[in-house]
């Protein structure tokens, strides 16, 4: 794994961690909306994009340690592959080598 690939993997993990905290906190505050606004999990340190995803989709993605939610066009083919493209975001899955970091940092694992 290159240094760049490692950086992306850890950055993605950080944004997943942050999104988990956001989702949990909003739920505890009584937010019952069908969708939530979260940060793009693309792993580029400078990315400031926010995406709105349905809670059901969010939960489906979170069942897989190696899958992440990213803004349209933020995928990096050398580190992940696009699983699904929706209106405003994409679901990507890490390649096996980088998935090791994704699994090790999954707060639900």
């Amino acid at each position: 794994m290159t240094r760049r690939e490692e950086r992306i993997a850890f950055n993605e993990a950080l944004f997943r961690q942050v999104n988990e905290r956001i989702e949990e906190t909003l739920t505890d505050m009584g937010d019952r909306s069908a969708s939530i606004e979260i940060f793009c999990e693309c792993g580029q340190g400078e990315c400031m994009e926010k995406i709105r995803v349905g809670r059901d989709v969010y939960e489906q993605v979170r069942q897989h340690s190696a899958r992440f939610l990213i803004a349209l066009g933020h995928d990096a083919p050398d580190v992940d592959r696009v699983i699904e493209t929706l209106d405003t975001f994409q679901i990507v899955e890490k390649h096996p080598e980088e998935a090791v970091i994704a699994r090790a940092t999954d707060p639900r694992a």
Partner: protein
Amino acid sequence: MGALALLGSLVAKSDDAGFCVVWRGSSGIMGGGEGGVERAERVAFNEVTFRRANEMIGERAEELAVTGRVPFVCECGDASCLERVELSLAEYEGVREDARCFLVAPGHAITGPDLGRVIRSETRYGVVEKIGLSGEIAEARDPRSAD
């Protein structure tokens, strides 16, 4: 050198993935890299990312008209931190007045040269002021400064 110029130089010398995070996992510190400057960058990156989450949480709390304390996330530099810090929106705004200040759970402050110092220590929370290099990063990446 101004904060934005400094940030630009930091990004330029890192690769195109930007900063790398500090992660305290079951097998110890993860995230790679050695040296104080790189560690300061990584800790600061984690902190500003958690601050962005709290900005979002604060905005949503206002929309939901939450009264009393809001469960913010700890903004310490450990990417694996799961702690929550409960503050009123007014208390949170007090922390946010200074772009170099971060909200942390008690005992979670990461301090030192180019990292930060504790400027407030309450029973429920602490406030860390970023200094040196990480202070520059904190200012440059303050979402309120971009308004």
